[in-house]
């Protein structure tokens, strides 16, 4: 292979020239845009059988069948001996008498409803709610916090009382009251 011909196109090389002639259809031309092939063949998608999906579906169906069977077997109405025990244990809740009938074949009764258990909660009154809120407020305060809070409230009580007294006097509501300490030192 002549490297001079390959890289600089000087001299001759029959092998490279042969390849160039074979591929001249794809030769770059600055004047024309690259042409699309005349025919585009779309190959059909090969359909493959997905064994994973099938296995998953079979397993799911089997699980459903097993679950249904277990539920069926555990239902007392399908077993006369278990049914009598069930009725006996729930005699306080069920008022349906079981009498032997003339039929030799078992009668398929509808599934017996499970007795409901209702937890009774007494309604919360305003009084109980107030007690709960007060307790909630007090249980969170430390002695230092409570002392500081009480001191501030005492100070604000006197301040607000005096200010309200002045406000009432200014607004013409001459109330029959005076300010005086409520809490003792």
């Amino acid at each position: 292979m002549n490297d001079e011909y390959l890289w600089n196109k000087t001299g001759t090389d029959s092998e490279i020239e042969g390849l160039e002639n074979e591929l001249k259809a794809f030769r770059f031309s600055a004047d024309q845009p690259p042409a699309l092939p005349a025919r585009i063949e779309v190959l059909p998608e090969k359909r493959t059988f997905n064994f994973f999906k099938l296995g998953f579906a079979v397993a799911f169906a089997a699980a459903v069948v097993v679950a249904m069977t277990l539920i069926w077997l555990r239902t007392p109405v399908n077993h006369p001996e278990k049914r009598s025990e069930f009725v006996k244990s729930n005699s306080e809740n069920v008022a349906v008498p079981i009498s032997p009938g003339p039929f030799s074949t078992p009668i398929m009764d509808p599934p017996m409803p499970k007795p409901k258990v209702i937890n009774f909660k007494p309604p919360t009154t305003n009084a109980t709610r107030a007690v709960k809120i007060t307790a909630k407020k007090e249980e969170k305060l430390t002695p230092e916090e409570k002392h500081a809070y009480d001191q501030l409230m005492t100070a604000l009580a006197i301040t607000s009382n005096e200010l309200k007294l002045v406000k009432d006097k200014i607004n013409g509501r001459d109330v029959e009251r005076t300010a005086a300490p409520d809490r003792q030192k």
Partner: protein
Amino acid sequence: MRNVIRYSLKLIPLLLFALALSTKAQDARLHFEHLTGLETKARDVVEVNIDGKVLDLAKRVLVKVNDPDAKKVGQAIAGLQAIYVRAYTFENAGEYNPGDIDQIRAQLQGPGWQRLANVRSKKDNQKIDVYTMFTGDTMSGVAVIMSQDKAVALVNVIGPIDIDLLAELGGKLNIPEMDIDTGGSKDKPKN
């Protein structure tokens, strides 16, 4: 190093301004020292001094307490720095020296204090004065002086408070509306 010095020099005026503000706020403090003798004469005494950490603690409790009125109180005293209260109730008229209270009123004639309201009533010789002090547009102090024949109440607030809101809150929350009737029998025993 030069930058550190430059920034420090810039901070000095700010620190001086803050110091001046705090000094100005402290000017709103009234002196109640000469009233100590009233404790022994009065039937009921309330003395409350709340500032610093105790006040911060009480403010935190106001936030902690889940009550709308507590929130209002917290809002009214958000900028409060200190509050000092003296309240005395006497068995009989003339048991305290009115000059002691006039001395407190004289402190309010100093610079910065402005009288917001005063109430005078011949009944029980009642006098109520409300003074405020402002630093610029910010309230820096409130003073309330109430005196009558058988009772004296002095309130000194340092820092801004919402006076209107506080006046509305009388009797709500845990703030008792201490409206003891002059001739009533609501007097509580002294502890």
